[in-house]
C-alpha cells in the first residue's frame, strides 16, 4: 500500500518494516502501517497475533529491533512513552482502566498531565463536556461508581485531554455488554466525525469494520490483508476466519 499512498499527505503515524522481538522470539514481522489525518482505521487479529505488541511499539513500551516508528514525520524509535504522548499519541486502554478512586474531574485533568497551558486545558474540558454532557453531570463522583457506559465516556474524555493527534483504542468492545459495545462504537464514530484520527485495535471484526475507513489484518505478527472496510467485509477469506461465518 505504501507505494501509492505515501505520495498523499504525510502520515500521522507510520510503521516502516517494523520487527519486534520478545526475548529471541520474533513477534512483529516487517509490519508496515500508516494512519493519515482524519482517518478511522482498525487493526484486526486473533489472540497472539501481535495486536497488543503493535500498540506497545507505537507507544514506546517495546522498542523495535529493526524498522522505524514514525510519528508526524519524526522517527521516534528511542523516544519514551511520555514524549510520544506529549507529541500526539494517546491510548484509551482496554477495559477503560480509570483511576477508580478518583473523581471524574480528577481523571480528566490527569489526562492533561503533560500539558502546561491552563487555558487550553479549561477549553478542552469544556469540549469534552460538550461531547459528553453526561460526564459533566457526574463531575465530582468517584469514577468507579459510574455505569459502564459513563466510564467509557470518561476514558475517552481523559484521552482527549492530552490533545492527541491520533487516538489509539485498545479493544473497545472487550468484555462489554452488547448495548455498550454499540454505544462505544457510536462514540468513536462521533469523535472521528469531529476530526480526530483514530487507530483502533479490535477482535470484533464486524463491529470495527462497520465504522472504520480501512483495516489491516494481523496474523502471527504479519500483515496478511490490508484494504478498505468494504473490501475486507466482502473478502471471503476474511469472512471465514474473522467474521464467524463458515
Amino acid at each position, binding site marked *: 500500500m505504501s507505494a501509492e499512498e505515501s505520495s498523499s499527505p504525510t502520515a500521522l503515524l507510520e510503521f516502516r518494516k517494523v*520487527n519486534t522481538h520478545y526475548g529471541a*522470539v520474533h513477534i512483529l514481522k516487517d509490519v508496515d502501517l500508516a494512519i493519515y489525518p482524519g482517518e478511522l482505521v482498525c487493526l484486526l487479529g486473533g489472540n497472539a497475533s501481535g495486536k*497488543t505488541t503493535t500498540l506497545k511499539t507505537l507507544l*514506546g513500551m517495546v*522498542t523495535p*529491533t529493526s524498522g522505524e516508528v514514525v510519528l508526524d514525520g519524526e522517527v521516534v524509535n528511542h523516544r519514551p512513552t511520555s514524549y510520544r504522548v506529549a507529541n500526539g499519541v494517546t*491510548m484509551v486502554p482496554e477495559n477503560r482502566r480509570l483511576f477508580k478512586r478518583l473523581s471524574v474531574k480528577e481523571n480528566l485533568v490527569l489526562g492533561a498531565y503533560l500539558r502546561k497551558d491552563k487555558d487550553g486545558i479549561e477549553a478542552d474540558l469544556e469540549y469534552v463536556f460538550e461531547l459528553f454532557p453526561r460526564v459533566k453531570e457526574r463531575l465530582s463522583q468517584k469514577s468507579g461508581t459510574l455505569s459502564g457506559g459513563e466510564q467509557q465516556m470518561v476514558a475517552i474524555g481523559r484521552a482527549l485531554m492530552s490533545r492527541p493527534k491520533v487516538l489509539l483504542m485498545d479493544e473497545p468492545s472487550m468484555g462489554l455488554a452488547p448495548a455498550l459495545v454499540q454505544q462505544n462504537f457510536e462514540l468513536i464514530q462521533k469523535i472521528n466525525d469531529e476530526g480526530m484520527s483514530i487507530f483502533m485495535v479490535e477482535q470484533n471484526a464486524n463491529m470495527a469494520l462497520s465504522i472504520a475507513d480501512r483495516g489491516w489484518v494481523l496474523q502471527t505478527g504479519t500483515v496478511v490483508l490490508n484494504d478498505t472496510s468494504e473490501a475486507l467485509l466482502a473478502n471471503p477469506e476474511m469472512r471465514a476466519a474473522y467474521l464467524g461465518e463458515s
Partner: protein
Amino acid sequence: MSATMNAPISGSSTAPALFDLDWRRIGTWGGLCALALILVSLIGMPVGLDRRMIIEGRLSLGYLALLWIPLLFGYVVSKRVVLEGVETPDPGARDVLAGFCTGVLSGLGPVLLILGIDNFNLREPLVNWGPPLLEQLTFGRGTGFGIVAWFGIGAVLGLLGSALHVLPKDVRRVISFVIYGLLSISVLEAVISDLSEGFGLESLTDDMYARRGGLTVKSSIILAVVIGVLPILTKGRLKGATNHYKELQGEERKRASMMLFSGVAGLCIVLPLFLGKIVNELLANVGLFLLLALGLNIVVGLAGILDLGYVAFFAVGGYTTSVLTSAESPFFAPELHFGFALIIVIIMAGLTGLVIGAPVIRMRGDYLAIVTLGFGEIIRLLFMSDWLKPYFGGAQGITNVPPVDLGFAVVTGIDPRSVFYLVLVFCTLAIYVSWRLQGSRLGRAWMAIREDEQVAEAMGINTVNAKLMAFVVGAMMAALSGAVLAAKVGSVFPNSFMILVSIIILVVVIVGGMGNIAGVLVGSFVLIGVLGGPRQPGLLQEFQSYKLLIYGALLVFMMLQRPEGLVPSARRSQELHQEEFLQDAWLKGEDHDTEEAAAAAAAGGSEGTGEQA
C-alpha cells in the same frame, strides 16, 4: 538487546561498519564498571584480601576482586541475543572493539580514585581512603604508572571478555575450564590439602601450594595444562550423559535417579572419613543450615508463606533439648537422653508452630511477614528475659549440654565428623519428607495456595488448615536442627537465634531455588559452605567481613537476573512449545522474563505515563 541491532538511526549508511558501535551502551556499561571498581576498592576488598594469594607472588585475592570486573563487563557489553527471524551478523571485530572501549572507560574508575587519594583527604567518611589503597592501586610504582596501567588493564580485560564471544566454542570451553579450575583449586586449598592428607597424599599438595598460601607458579602452569586438556577429552560426553538422563522415561528414569542418589549418599558417608576437622566442621554447619532451609522451603517455597520469624523454631528446638538434657538447666533436674528429648522437641515444635501459626496464618503478604518477624524476636527476647531466667538462664543461656550418646558412638562438638553424620540422618529424613509431601495431595494444595490463595479456597481447599500444616512441618525440621546445634555446641544462648538467622536461611532458599529440594541443597553448600553462616565461618574466611554485603548483592542479582534460583525447578525451564507461551504471555503483558523486559525498557528509555501502565 535491541539497541545493538539498529544503532544510531540518524548516522545511517555512510559510517564505516567497524566504528558503527552502540556508544550509548558502551558508555553505560563502561561507566557502571568504573563505578563498580571504585565501590569494591572503597569497601576495602583489594587491601583486605591482598594477603591471600591465588598464585604465589603474582596474583592475590585482593587484585582478583578488582580484575574480574572489567572482564565480566567486557563479556556483557558485547553479548547479544540471537533473534529469531532477523539476520544477526556473526560476532566479530565490532564486538571486540566494543569490549575494548568499555574496558578503557572502566579504567577511569581506579584512575579517578588514584588521583583523588593522591590529592584529597577523605579518610574521615571513607575508612579505606588512604595510602594502602593508593599503594595497591598503583602497584607501588607511583601515580603515573598506576594511571597508565589501569587504562591498559581495563582495555586488555575488556577485550578479553568480549573476545570470548568471538573465539570458537571449544577454545572458549578450554579457557573457562582453566580459569574456573585454577581458581577453585586455589580457593579450595583448605579442603584439598585436608582431603589429600586423609588419603595420605600430602606430598602432592605440599608441592602444589606455596607455604604462605596460593598455588606456586610452577604448579599453576602444570595444572592449567592438565585442566585445559580435560574439556577436550570429555568433550560433549558430560552433556550427552545429562541429556540421556533427561530423556529417560518412567522406570528407567527412576532407576537412574536411584543410582545417582545412592552414589551421592555413598559419597556423603565415605568422604568425611578422609576429611579433617576443619572441613568436617564446615560440612556439619552446612548440614544444620540445610535442615533449616529444607523446613523453610516447605513454608515459603511450597506454601508461599513468607515467614521471617523462622528462627523461633530453631530456638525452641535448641532450648528444649538443652533444658531436658543439660545438668545445668535451672529448673528441669533429670537429664533425659537425647533420643527422648527429641520426641518432646518435635512435639514442642509442633505446638509452637500451631500457637504462632494460628493467629498469623489468616494474614496475607506483607502483614504476615511483619508479624512473623515480630514473633521471631519475641521468642528470642523471652528466652533472654529475666522473667524466665529461672527456666532458661537469661542472657547466660544454658550450658553443659551433654554430647549425644548413641550407644555405639558419641556425637559431640569436639568431633565434627560425628555431628555431620547425625545431621546427615536428619537431612535425609527431611529430604524424604519434603519429596513425598511435594507430590501428595497436601503438597499440591500448598502450591495452589502459593499461586492464588483465593482461587485455592474456591477450589475447595481449606487454606487455613493446609497453611498451618506447612507451618508445623517446617517448625519441626527447624527444631531438629536446633536440637543438634545444642548438642554440638554444648550450650545455647539467646544470641545464637538472631533475626539474621531467619534472613540468611531465606536467602539460601531464594538463591538456591524456591520450592526445589536440589536448589536448597546447592544453595546451602554454596552460601553456608563457601561464605559461611551468620556466626559460622565458611571456606572463604577472608570474606568474613564482607559476608553480609555479598549475601545482599547476591540476593539483588538473583532477583533481577534469575528469580527462579540457581537450580530452577524443572517446570520453570520447559522448552517445549515455548513460543506459544512466550508470545501469548508477552501479548497479554505478563513479563515473565525480567531480563528482556528490563533490556527493552532500558533501550527504549520508556516510562509509562500512568494510564498506559
